[in-house]
C-alpha cells in the first residue's frame, strides 16, 4: 500500500481507538512493514503540526495517540464545564442575610427562622465562598457554626460585619411590638370567596 493511501486509514484508527496504539498492532492489521507504518504516522503527525490543528499526535514508547493540542486547553475547559452558571437565588440570599446578621449560627437555628430546611442553601453558600464553617457549638450534637467570609465582606466593600446596616434598636423594638400587637393579623388572612 502507498503511504498516501495509508494516511486516512491510520488517521481513522488513531481517532477511533482514542488511546495509545502500538505501531506493530497497526502494521499487523494493515499487513505492512513497521517502518512504513511509522513513516505514515510521522507524516500525519507533521501534517497536524504544520496545520496548527486542534488535534496532535504524540508518541509514547513506540505507541501513538491522538490528543488535543494543548493550545486550545483553555477553550476545552470552557466547554467542558460550561452549563454551570452560578446564581444567588432568593433562598440563598435570605439564608445569607440570616447568617450575616446572626453569625455564628447553626443550621438548625437558620431553619427555625426560615421555617424550612437549609442544607442545600448553606452548602451552596459555602461552595460560593460567601459562608464558612466557624467550628462547633459546645452543645448536644456539637452542631457546626457558620459565619460569613472575608470574601463576603469584600464583595460589599466593607471591612467587618459591624459595618452591616444595623437593625436599629428601635427597629427591633418595633418588630417585637408589631409581633405582639398583630400576631396573626399581619399575616395575610386567607379569605376564600
Amino acid at each position, binding site marked *: 500500500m502507498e503511504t498516501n493511501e495509508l494516511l486516512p486509514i491510520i488517521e481513522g484508527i488513531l481517532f477511533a481507538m482514542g488511546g495509545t496504539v502500538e505501531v506493530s498492532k497497526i502494521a499487523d492489521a494493515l499487513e505492512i512493514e513497521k517502518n512504513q507504518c511509522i513513516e505514515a504516522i510521522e507524516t500525519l503527525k507533521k501534517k497536524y503540526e504544520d496545520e496548527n490543528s486542534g488535534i496532535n499526535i504524540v508518541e509514547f514508547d513506540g505507541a501513538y495517540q491522538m490528543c488535543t493540542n494543548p493550545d486550545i486547553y483553555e477553550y476545552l475547559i470552557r466547554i467542558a464545564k460550561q452549563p454551570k452558571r452560578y446564581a444567588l437565588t432568593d433562598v440563598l*440570599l435570605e439564608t445569607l442575610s440570616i447568617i450575616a446578621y446572626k453569625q455564628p449560627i447553626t443550621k438548625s437555628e437558620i431553619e427555625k427562622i426560615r421555617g424550612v430546611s437549609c442544607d442545600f442553601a448553606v452548602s451552596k453558600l459555602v461552595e460560593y465562598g460567601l459562608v464558612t464553617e466557624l467550628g462547633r457549638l459546645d452543645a448536644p450534637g456539637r452542631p457546626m457554626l457558620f459565619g460569613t467570609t472575608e470574601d463576603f465582606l469584600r464583595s460589599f466593600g466593607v471591612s467587618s460585619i459591624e459595618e452591616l446596616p444595623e437593625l436599629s434598636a428601635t427597629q427591633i423594638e418595633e418588630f417585637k411590638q408589631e409581633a405582639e400587637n398583630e400576631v396573626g393579623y399581619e399575616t395575610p388572612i386567607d379569605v376564600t370567596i
Partner: protein
Amino acid sequence: MDINFKLQVFEGPLDLLLHLIDKNKVDIYDIPIVEITDQYMEYIRLMEEESLDVMSEFLLMAATLLDIKSRMLLPKEAVNEEEETEDPRAELVQQLLEYKMYKTISYELRDRQMDATKVLYKAPTIPPEVLAYETPVDLEVLMSDVTLNRLNEVFNQVLRRQDSRRDPIRSSFGKIKKEEVSLEQKMEWVVAFAKAHNTFSFRHLLEASRSKTEVIVTFLCILEMMKSGQIYITQEDTFTDIIIESKIAA
C-alpha cells in the same frame, strides 16, 4: 389454489394481505375481495395456535374482509346522483397502501443502518483535570445585585415572616383587647381608600387592621361595596391575594 405458505410468518393481517395480493398478482387498488377473503380465511384456519392476541388481530381483519365482501355482493342501492357510493374496499386499500409504504421505507432504513455501522465514533477523551475543573465563582457577578441595604431588607423580611408564622391563636392569648370597630367608620375609610386607588390588594388593606374584628369589618365593607358595584374583585386561585379594582377611583 394451493395454500402453501403455511410456514411463512406474517407480521400481521396487513402483511398477510399484501402477501396474498402479491401472490395473486392483483392490483392493490382493485382487490378481488372474494378470492382474497377466501384465501385469507384459509390461511387463518391453517395458522398454528398462536397467542390469543395475535389470533385476534388476524380475526379482526377477517371480519373486516367478510364485511367488505358482503357489502360488495349486495346489490347496489339506487345511487343518489349527489352521493357517490364509496367502494367498500377504499378504507382497506388506503390502509394497505400506507402500510406498504412504511414497509418499503423500512427496507430503505435497513440499508441506511448497514452503511451507518461503517462509521466509528470516539469516546470522550477529556483530560481528567479538565473534567475535574470547577468554574471559579465570580463573586462580583454573583453579588452584583446585592447591596448592603438589600441584604438588610431581606433580613427584615425574613424576621417579619418568622413573626407571622407564630401560632396566631396561642401567642395572642390574653392580649386581645375588646375593641369596637364601627362599620360606618370603616366603610368611610375603605371608600376613601378606593377613591384614591385604582387597584389594590385585599391583603394590603388588611395590614392596617388592628384586630380580628377589624379584619372582619373590613371584609364586610368589601362585600358591601362589591354588592353595590363600587368595586370589582378578582382572585387568581384559592388562598391567593384578592385584587380589588375600584370603580369609584378619581
